[in-house]
């Protein structure tokens, strides 16, 4: 899932300072699960900002609300009035949610309350770790199910670098070397032959490197006839 982290509150307060009426919008999907932008965080943020305003003697109306999935127009539409009634919206969703609101209401100001971090796995309560960078061309069937692109600091394709010591990454000694883990996994699976074959240069055109990506499925898309409102006449 998408893992995000709340921006430092002083940064948020500064962003919002010039505006009289603020709506804070959370999201019940990924960011709720990663404890960054669900209803609880929204309510606490609203309250914390109010305490700060009280201290600074600033008059600012702040209210919070939450939508099911902020990255989808239909859910955002439900709170349209609340959004447009404010001077600025602080999105407590990932950047996708913030951009959805921004795209829907281009004149309206929408600011990010979170820093969107990564595709992460909730390893345990309160710990999320990056395991995919969305390169668009998955190879983990050849690497024991462990992604070296995301889990190796150098995204190496052909085994561990020379900096690996005690099976830890040279960049962060707390982090396991991805290739040590791959080795163990392949050994366990009796597939160590794979470590001998040279993986050639990766085609990055499927990743963000190839430009912004849009995935489409023709069979899933609604035809103009099916669309409500602005269909064909």
């Amino acid at each position, binding site marked *: 899932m998408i893992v995000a982290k709340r921006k430092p509150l002083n940064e948020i307060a500064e962003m919002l300072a010039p505006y009289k009426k603020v709506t804070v919008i959370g999201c019940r999907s990924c960011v709720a699960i990663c404890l960054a932008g669900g209803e609880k965080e929204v309510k606490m943020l609203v309250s914390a900002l109010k305490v700060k305003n009280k201290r600074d003697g600033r008059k600012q109306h702040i209210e919070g609300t939450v939508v099911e999935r902020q990255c989808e127009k239909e859910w955002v539409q439900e709170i349209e009035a609340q959004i447009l009634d404010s001077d600025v919206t602080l999105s407590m969703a990932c950047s996708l949610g913030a951009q959805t609101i921004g795209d829907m209401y281009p004149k309206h100001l929408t600011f990010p309350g979170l820093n969107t971090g990564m595709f992460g796995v909730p390893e345990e309560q309160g710990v999320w770790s990056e395991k995919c960078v969305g390169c668009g061309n998955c190879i983990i069937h050849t690497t024991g199910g462990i992604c070296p692109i995301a889990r190796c600091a150098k995204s190496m394709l052909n085994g561990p670098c020379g900096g690996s010591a005690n099976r830890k990454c040279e960049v962060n000694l707390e982090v396991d070397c991805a290739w040590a883990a791959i080795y163990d996994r392949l050994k366990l699976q009796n597939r160590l032959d794979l470590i001998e074959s040279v993986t050639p*240069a*990766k*085609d*990055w*055109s499927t*990743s963000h*490197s*190839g*430009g912004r990506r849009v995935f489409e499925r023709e069979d899933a898309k609604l035809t103009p006839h099916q669309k409500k409102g602005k269909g064909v006449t």
Partner: protein
Amino acid sequence: MKAGSNLEKVFESGQFAVTAEIGPPQSANPEPLTHHAKMLKGYADAFNLTDNQTAVVRLSSIASAVIIMREGVEPVIQMTCRDRNRIALQSDLLGAAALGVKNVLCLTGDHQTFGNEKGAKNVFDFDSIVELQVFDQLRTQGKQVGGEVLKDPPKTYLGCAENPFATPYEYRASRLAKKVAAGADFCQTQAIFDMDMFEKWMDEVRARGLDKKIHILAGVIPMKSAGAARYMKNKVPGMIVPDHIVDRMKSAKDAKGEGIKLCVEQIEHLKTVKGVHGVHIMAVAWEDIVPRIVEMAGLLPRPKFES
């Protein structure tokens, strides 16, 4: 003098500058570079060496610069942000300076999907404006972007490129202003075919007083054929070729001759545009024609300075 390059001296002396482009070969053979350098020597004040232009792998621009310098020709190296991160860019700037390269043109770079390595992972650690800013800080304060201060900073004359014909047009003068603020000394424009539009942009540039802060080299491309005109009109993003020019090339009996004539006319006109301090001739794969155009445009002889 920032770097004391020939180009800088031309600009500083207030004379109308001429630069031209030399495309490094798609091979390890330095011969084409030597050939062009010999042939073009004395016809332009400095020569641009493109940096894997359109993301096609070519002999590196720094190496090319050194090769043409052996022939007594001054290079302007292009440095794009596509293939190098800040470590490599700063390192190459130092390396180029050490090799005697004095002019550097900062570019973001064409996306690799246009070239012959579509599967490449791009870098884009910087964009061209950040690159200018970082290089300017490096040359003036000797300070790296990471904060470390170097003993002997590079002496470099910094250039940039700007395209008055790319959308949104309203942004274009602002982009130039940002590049000026970031430290650019000179600017090469995209090839100009639509003079009205260029002049409109120049109006805005002058209104902002930018022409006083940066030397603008107006870009021109001599065309060999009507096909080339059509290609540039339809296929090259951010290029505007008005119909009358395409038509003129189409109806010409001697397309090459017409192309040269057109280019010379354009240069004659650009000389009259206030704030334009020179021209940059991009004779893509037609470098041989540069001497003739320069001569016909009355830009000879090129100024010489005591070194």
